[in-house]
């Protein structure tokens, strides 16, 4: 790494350490700084896990309170962001578990069907839309978001952290207390489920525009 790059890494690490120290002193400005630096990622995670803006905001508030109460337990061996993700995800999962749960068995048979010989049992559909159809792409994103809200909670958490937050599998495993292998399996199954959700949308659009 060039010298300037190393300097930047050290400076960022120093700034992160200063923020943690200020948080541990219960400096109110530090908590506002926390929102400024990490609010977007916490909001994305809360929104995608809860599927609803008011509940996402409730999760954020509870997360901030937990950070205030537990910051003295943060041992700084992991990144602050990893610790914050863990609190936000656990807060959201506890709320989700108090509501009706989406059964995990929903994903047991997701994905293409195969013959005994391991070949595709059905023809896979094509579903590419012309790129200029931006409105249809936005509709596809809405369909995707609705699909995410139907994922079982633990699959949803893995998917949000991996696909939307683009965290490494090892970090997700640490946050959710899973093995890396389980993270990969759940991500793959979540993608297969969402692919089937989207297939329904794309194939219907293709037929209606024919």
């Amino acid at each position, binding site marked *: 790494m060039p010298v300037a790059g190393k300097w930047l890494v050290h400076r960022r690490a120093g700034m992160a350490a200063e923020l943690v120290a200020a948080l541990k002193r219960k400096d109110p400005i530090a908590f506002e700084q926390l929102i400024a630096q990490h609010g977007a990622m916490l909001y994305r995670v809360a929104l995608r896990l809860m599927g609803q803006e008011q509940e996402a905001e409730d999760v954020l508030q509870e997360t901030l309170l937990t950070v205030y109460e537990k910051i003295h337990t943060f041992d700084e061996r992991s990144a602050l962001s990893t610790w914050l993700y863990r609190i936000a995800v656990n807060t959201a999962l506890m709320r989700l578990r108090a509501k009706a749960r989406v059964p995990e068995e929903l994903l047991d048979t997701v994905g293409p069907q195969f013959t005994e010989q391991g070949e595709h049992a059905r023809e896979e559909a094509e579903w590419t839309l012309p790129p200029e159809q931006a409105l249809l792409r936005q509709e*596809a994103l809405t369909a*995707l978001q609705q699909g995410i809200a139907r994922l079982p909670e633990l699959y949803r958490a893995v998917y949000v952290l991996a696909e939307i937050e683009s965290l490494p599998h090892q970090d997700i495993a640490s946050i959710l207390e899973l093995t890396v292998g389980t993270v990969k399996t759940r991500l793959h199954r979540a*993608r297969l489920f969402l692919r089937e959700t989207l297939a329904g949308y794309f194939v219907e659009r293709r037929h209606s525009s024919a």
Partner: protein
Amino acid sequence: MLRCRDVADLILAYLEGTLAPGERQALEAHIADCPNCLRFLKTYRETVALGQQLREEAVPSDVRDRLEAFLRSRLPRSS
């Protein structure tokens, strides 16, 4: 020789670039000859790409204002 079921099982590792060279070549050779697996790969990739478009969610300004007001009301201020 890979079967279609094997391709589906390996697709995540393939897209992450973590397959051993021999496995990657075998997968690509299978896909080159299998229209079903090619469509599966394309639709799996499109699913991944769409999910990644959800990365740009900012905190709405009114949510941020309420969070800061919440902090001020709930956390003791230093004297």
